[in-house]
């Protein structure tokens, strides 16, 4: 008989399972390839759980409604792909400044513009970091397998609720549409975090209370009446022109993620201990890389893989340490060099950094990586 | 002025901190009770007030109210 709760799931279906597991009870979005199965799945699952689903009139409406749902106290999510992610950027900035928890899934596809809707890509790495204006924290997780899409979606919700910030789940079309066996975790098996609720009296409540690095967030309608604005604001939520308060608040929202980066970072290291050449990559490309590393090792080449599951905040320290002990870091990515720039920044010239790019809507193959690594030995 | 019930005058309160001097209350007062004193509304002829509340209703600035 089949193993308990083991199912063959598509990546996008695993994302739905992860969201439901994490307690997501509000979804608003707009159809876009290759993420639509997430929205379809949520439309089926949420009503059965008493949760709310709405298909909005556009991408902006999708994220705006999801933010409304979150502010009303429900764990909320929206999902999209490149062009829709572009449209959502203004609301992402709003969520950063107003500190409303939200999970945004971006199933990356080829671009710019409408690009190649059905082909894989990793070209939203920088958009995730810099897409909205201003300085703001960004947390983005990058699963590599279908089971990991489930667990990383849960982690994304935990981070969003814990840090009161939007958290992105970035993966590509290959992962979104491929199927792998997934064992659905039992209740309690994975950690599920909920946002802190205020314990003070309503009249003492400040939504950005500077007693806290991350203040508790009261849901609308819970007796804590407060004001939320996308303008720079004071700890009571009201707009301010006071330059000291503006600076302190902007720095605080960066700091809340920065000083906690150790707990947000998550890397997998594959045969890095004695590696002479390292590969740094994410998502489905990391699967090709792992395949290549195995083949390289068979040919006696000391290759290894550093695979971040958290791409933002960028794993600065892991890359810096790696750069001290390898000849080269190869960065395969389905774009024209977005992660490579960051790896170069962290390696600071201590080793060679070489990008391996592909933007034709086809995956980077193990043999491409295999041959690229061999160039350095 | 005597304090007879029939002649009891209303109390018109202008909040000078809130009045922005648009003169809407002065312009719309049907019995010409109000005037502008510089850029602030002021009571000119309280006896003419009919307590219609139009000054309050049309004041954009929460700056004037008529009490019995």
């Amino acid at each position, binding site marked *: 008989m089949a193993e308990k709760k083991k199912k063959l799931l598509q990546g996008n279906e695993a994302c739905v399972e992860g969201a439901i597991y994490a307690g997501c009870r509000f979804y608003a979005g707009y159809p876009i390839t290759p993420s639509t199965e997430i929205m379809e799945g949520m439309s089926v699952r949420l*009503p059965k759980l008493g949760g709310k689903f*709405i298909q909005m*009139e556009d991408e902006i409406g999708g994220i705006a409604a999801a933010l409304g749902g979150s*502010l009303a106290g429900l764990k909320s999510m929206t999902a999209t792909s490149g062009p829709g992610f572009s449209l959502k950027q203004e609301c992402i900035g709003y969520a950063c400044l107003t500190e409303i928890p939200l999970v945004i899934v971006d199933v990356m596809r080829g671009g710019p513009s409408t690009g190649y809707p059905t082909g894989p890509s990793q070209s939203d790495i920088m958009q995730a970091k810099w897409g909205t204006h201003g300085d703001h924290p960004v947390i983005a997780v990058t699963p590599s397998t279908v089971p990991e899409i489930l667990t990383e979606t849960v982690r994304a919700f935990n981070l969003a609720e814990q840090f009161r910030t939007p958290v992105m789940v970035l993966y590509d079309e290959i992962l979104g549409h491929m199927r792998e066996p997934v064992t659905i975790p039992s209740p309690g098996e994975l950690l599920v975090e909920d946002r802190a609720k205020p314990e003070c009296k309503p009249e003492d409540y400040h939504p950005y209370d500077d007693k806290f690095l991350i203040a508790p967030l009261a849901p*609308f309608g819970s007796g804590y009446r407060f004001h939320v604005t996308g303008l720079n604001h004071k700890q009571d939520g009201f707009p301010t022109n006071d330059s000291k308060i503006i600076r302190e608040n902007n720095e605080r929202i960066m700091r809340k993620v920065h000083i906690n980066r150790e707990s947000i970072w998550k890397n997998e290291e594959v045969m890095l201990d004695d590696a002479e050449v390292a590969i740094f990559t994410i998502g489905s490309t990391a699967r090709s890389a792992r395949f290549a590393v195995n083949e390289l090792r068979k040919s006696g080449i000391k290759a290894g893989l550093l695979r971040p599951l958290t791409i933002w905040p960028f794993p600065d320290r892991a890359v810096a340490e790696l750069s001290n002990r390898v000849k080269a870091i190869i960065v395969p990515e389905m774009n024209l060099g977005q992660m490579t720039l960051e790896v170069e920044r962290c390696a600071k010239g201590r080793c060679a950094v070489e990008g391996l790019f592909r933007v034709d809507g086809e995956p980077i193959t193990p043999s491409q990586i295999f041959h690229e690594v061999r160039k350095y030995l | 002025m005597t304090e007879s019930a029939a002649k009891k005058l209303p109390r018109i309160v202008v909040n000078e901190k809130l009045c922005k001097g648009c003169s809407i209350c002065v*312009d719309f007062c049907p019995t010409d009770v109000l005037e502008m004193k510089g850029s602030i509304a002021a009571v000119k002829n309280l006896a003419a007030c009919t307590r219609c*509340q139009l000054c309050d*209703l049309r004041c954009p*600035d*929460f700056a004037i109210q008529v009490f019995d």
Partner: protein
Amino acid sequence: MSIPVAEKKEKVSVPFDYNKYLRPNKLPHIWCPGCGHGIVLKAMLRAIDKAGLEKDNIALVSGIGCSSRTPGYVDFNTLHTLHGRALPFATGIKLAKPEMKVIVVTGDGDALAIGGNHFIHACRRNIDLTVLVFTNATYGMTGGQYSPTTPLEAMATTSRYGNIEPPFDTCEMAKASGATFVARGTAYHTIELEKTIHEALTHKGMSVVDIIDACPTYFGRANKFKSATQMMEEIEKDGTVNVKQAANLPPEKLAGKMLRGVLHKVEKPEYCEKYDILIKEKASAKK
């Protein structure tokens, strides 16, 4: 200067205590002298009071623009969002917490230009929101550009030779899009406005009130109005006619005038109620 007949009948004996709903120490508001938004805000607060709504249970949501600063002054659950996006944020709150009364205050540019798509779809869904569109025919916050309701030939900082774009009729659009309560009021007819907003608040479904008010600073100066009072007289009083009175007036008396009052009211299934039925069906089907 005469008091309009409708107002005379509605004699108010005691002043309304706005402090009950205002946040302490937030006044004076940012609006210019003579701006109608404050008059509309006061009518809204009186209507909320009349409807007996609990402050904890009200969410007041706005977008960007002069009118969208309203939530900062009032003691509800208040949300000042992004330009054009008040309605989807409000939709999220309402759907997540249908027991809340969700009111949207928005300007004509916010609701009908940058947020136009959200507006027609919120109407189409017939979700239980009360939307107050502060229509001053200008973008005041950015300095007086023409808006979707600026009349033909009117002057603005971006129509220096006269506006060549025809304006929207907000009410017609709301009705055509599926809103089940559509009305118009003005800042001049303040008691009528209070009643209209009260009726909108008590309606189940998408209610839209288009509220004509004055921007003396930009629209007024650019179009040679001498004062806020003159704008209220000419645009709000002489430029509109109550829909009930209009029924008895010959067409020539109605030419160029906008209708005031409740223009459209029907009962139709409301979005959140339909969703609730769905939840009950699906949750029980699971068992």
